[in-house]
């Protein structure tokens, strides 16, 4: 360890990235407190932050290439974890989802959060070889299979939100592995055409009905949706965000939307709405800017990566974070249907913060070795 530390200069440690992440978590902990002042979630979050920082430092000073080298082992271990969580008696069932394993010290542990990292490693392991030609069909199929195994297991829990966050990992890697541009463009165009078409066909045929339809309708027209039924979450989140106005309540939580229990899941899925209510437009824009800097910093790191594997690891992590950010905040702002995706670094949850910090640790590890060979 000392030898490694000697070789690596602390000057090369990506301080802005680490500090940015740290600041967002501290800010987020304040919001968790605002969301549930009487509960101990924010204290647990600080505890998690401590563990996460240690994990991040440990990972960043480990050579990522050695880790990627044994990626299949991690990947297999991840799949085993995802399998274990499905075993009745070990996996905890909450709200009809079997996503958690109970641990003696840390409480709950959510494998689907962590398995993202072995999955990214496995993808980088496979796609990290020097590339001289466009992506082949075979490569694509193998990439899809690498992703399909964990995603399939997660869908069995079932946790659609988490499963969804795996998709951008592969998408980014395929995109950066010289997938042909016409395929990308065709895929985008198809999505833009098929999504509305599917909505209309679904409504007409009755395939899209009940809560699924209501969750989409509330996005299209929140004023006239069923605000007390399945449109409730979205509507209350919109009201909470809008209520914040320019400056928010300034941190006062008296009779806030969350303390009166109008806003559901305020400390996890809807932490952004709480932020909007307490800090207003100013606070939210500052937070979004922080995220923008964080992502830019990661992409800069990817550009400086010493090899293709490192670049893919960072970019997959970046893609995953950006996707989660967009889905979660979009949901809080009533732009996207409600799916259970936590806001990285903000939402309360040990697994989420730990996994995110480990991922950032990876990114730092890659950068630390940009001048080392």
């Amino acid at each position: 360890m000392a030898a490694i530390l000697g070789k690596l200069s602390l000057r090369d440690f990506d301080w802005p990235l680490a500090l940015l992440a740290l600041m967002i978590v501290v800010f987020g902990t304040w919001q968790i407190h605002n969301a549930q002042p009487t509960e101990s979630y924010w204290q647990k979050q600080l505890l998690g932050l401590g563990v996460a920082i240690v994990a991040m430092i440990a990972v960043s000073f480990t050579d990522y290439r050695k880790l990627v080298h044994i990626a299949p082992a991690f990947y297999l271990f991840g799949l085993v974890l995802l399998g274990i969580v499905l075993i009745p008696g070990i996996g905890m069932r909450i709200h009809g989802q079997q996503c958690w394993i109970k641990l003696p010290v840390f409480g709950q542990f959510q494998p689907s959060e962590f398995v993202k990292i072995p999955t990214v490693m496995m993808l980088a392991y496979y796609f990290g070889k020097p590339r001289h030609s466009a992506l082949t069909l075979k490569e694509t199929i193998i990439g899809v299979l690498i992703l399909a195994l964990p995603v399939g297991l997660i869908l069995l829990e079932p946790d659609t939100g988490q499963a969804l966050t795996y998709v951008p990992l592969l998408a980014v890697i395929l995109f950066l592995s010289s997938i042909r541009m016409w395929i990308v463009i065709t895929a985008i165009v198809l999505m833009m055409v098929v999504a509305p078409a599917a909505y209309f066909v679904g409504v007409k045929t009755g395939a899209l009905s009940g809560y699924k339809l209501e969750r989409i309708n509330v996005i299209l027209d929140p004023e006239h949706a069923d605000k007390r039924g399945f449109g409730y979450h979205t509507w209350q989140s919109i009201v909470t965000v809008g209520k914040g106005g320019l400056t928010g309540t300034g941190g006062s939580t008296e009779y806030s939307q969350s303390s009166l229990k109008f806003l559901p899941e305020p400390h996890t899925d809807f932490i952004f709405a709480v932020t909007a209510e307490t800090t207003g437009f100013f606070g939210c824009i500052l937070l979004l800017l922080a995220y923008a800097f964080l992502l830019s910093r990661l992409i800069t790191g990817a550009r400086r990566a010493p090899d293709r594997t490192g670049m893919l690891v960072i970019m997959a992590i970046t893609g995953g974070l950006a996707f989660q950010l967009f889905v979660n905040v979009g949901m809080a702002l009533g732009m996207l249907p409600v799916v259970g995706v936590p806001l990285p670094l903000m939402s309360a949850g040990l697994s989420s913060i730990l996994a995110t910090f480990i991922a950032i640790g990876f990114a730092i590890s890659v950068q630390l070795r940009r001048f080392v060979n």
Partner: protein
Amino acid sequence: MKFEDDSQNLRARLRVIQILAILMITALGVRLYYLQIIRGAYYAERAENQRIRLLPIPAPRGVILDRNNKLLVDSRPIYNVILSREDINGKDFTNLVKPYAKGLNVDAEELNARFLQLKSQPAFESFMVKENVTPADIAWVDAHSLEFPELRVELQPQRRYPEDGKLAHVLGYVGEISQEQLDLPQYKEKGYKPGDIIGKEGLEKVYDDYLRGRDGYRKVIVDSRGHIQDEVERVEPQPGQDLVTTIDSDLQNAAEEQLRNSVTKRGVIVAMDPNNGEILALASYPTYDPNLFSQRIASKEGRAEYAALTADPKTPLINRAIQGRYPPGSTWKIPMSVAGLQQGAISVDHSNLVCGGGITVGNKFTRCMGNHGVPELRYAITKSCDGYFYRLGLKMGVDGIIKMVDEFDLNRRTGVDLPHELVSWTPAYWKPELEKRHEEWKDIRTVYASVGQDTVVVTPLASLRAVSAIAVGGRMYVPHFFKEARAIGAPDTPDYRPARTFDRPDPKIIDIPEDQHHIVVEGMWGVVNNGGTAHAIKSSGKIQMVGFDIAGKTGTAQVVSLGKDTGNNKDHAWFVSFAPAYQPEIAVIALIENVGFGGTHAAPAVRAIYEAYYRKTRHVEPPGSQMAQKQQRQTGATPPASTAALTAHR
């Protein structure tokens, strides 16, 4: 970049991802700007609306008192289970009916029907699930607050009336405001809302503005389940103004008792101060329990009770004093006498007319009850000589009778402060009516009309008012119950409601010269005190009260033609009177339906009112009462002189 891979334009692809990420974040920022800056105020209001709730605190209504401050009507607090609309929105009520009905022990079908009816209204705030709940019901609501957060228990004052139906027709009752009323501009202006309790009948209706308090409210913060978290503001309700009426409870009780113990138990007694129009007692029988409307009307049993009342052929809901029109019979002879003198058909010096045992008009003979020779007016009144008045009527002519009717306002409402007063029907109404039908007014109708039959049907109150005006020499007051609305609140505050007393209109002056007045009163005095039709009643002793001169007139009004007047078609018994005869303090009228002779049935009932009045104002037992006779036997005391009586009252 450390690894060169230009052929795959990796740089550009990284740039695309970066731009994409920044675009996404920009989109979120734009959306934030829209929600928080452009629409911020709107959503702040929506958030406010869903957490702030105004809960009304119903104001207690003013109490109703008699003239001596005895309580007639008050309110007692009860608990109701209320459903608030805001919490039911979006839920299907039909699913709630069953558990409500089971938990609160109410009829499910009825509950559903009432709710559906209410649902059609655009803006109801709350809905009464059950009124006057038991402690067990309250416990049930508390225990199920998580399951049914829309239910809450509310304290509300409930109106309480005398249970025996005493004064029911005067007091009226309160009830929930109807949709029809809510649509009327005069109610809208006053800010009534669905569920408000307002006066629906009687004094409760007429003086609703005074009696009604101003509701207070609690501004509370509720959570998403409707549970109250905090109270931000509280405005206490202001009770309504207490209403002091002109009613004297003791006289009222006496009147009620007389009707209750009458043969047919149908009739009306009204006592009035002829000097100002203050009504001292008004009883109409059969009566009803107004608590039905203020307490039980929402229940199945209550509605059945109401249906039974409306279907009852004895019409207990009718205030007979102002809504009953009866042939006045011989009581009609009093205004006839005054008018006959006024119009010169007879004079004080030459008031003799033939009785003749009856009269023949055309080929029809209409008889008198006796043969009184050629009586003068006093004797004709005292003996109630029909023959005399047939001829007087013919002398005055129908136009003379119509003039009299007009003079004594018998073709108008008395203006009493009760709703739904009917106008009497007299030749003033029927003659033009017949002319419209191209029918001739025959003399026989004039003959009948001069003894208060055929085309003459009057309300007892109109009749009493006319006789009261004659009693005091021609000053005709508007009969009324309103004495005072007490002040409420502290002076010089916006909430202050000052005291109000009756704004008495000037009496209508009827020109009755002193000598004419005297002769008519003397005749009426004779009825009771000088061998007249109410002098000695075999069954109930004398009507006369020595030292308290009653002047009166009996009436026995035919309901059907002679010969058929038995059973339910018996004559109506009347007695209209005032006392003391030459210094009247009180005027009383009694009508007992279908019992027969007025002197036998109505006069004793009126005497009972005078006894109560005498006892009250002279503080001794009235002369001639059984109690007084007993006392006299024991102590040898004599009844007080009538002069003492004159100053005792007023």
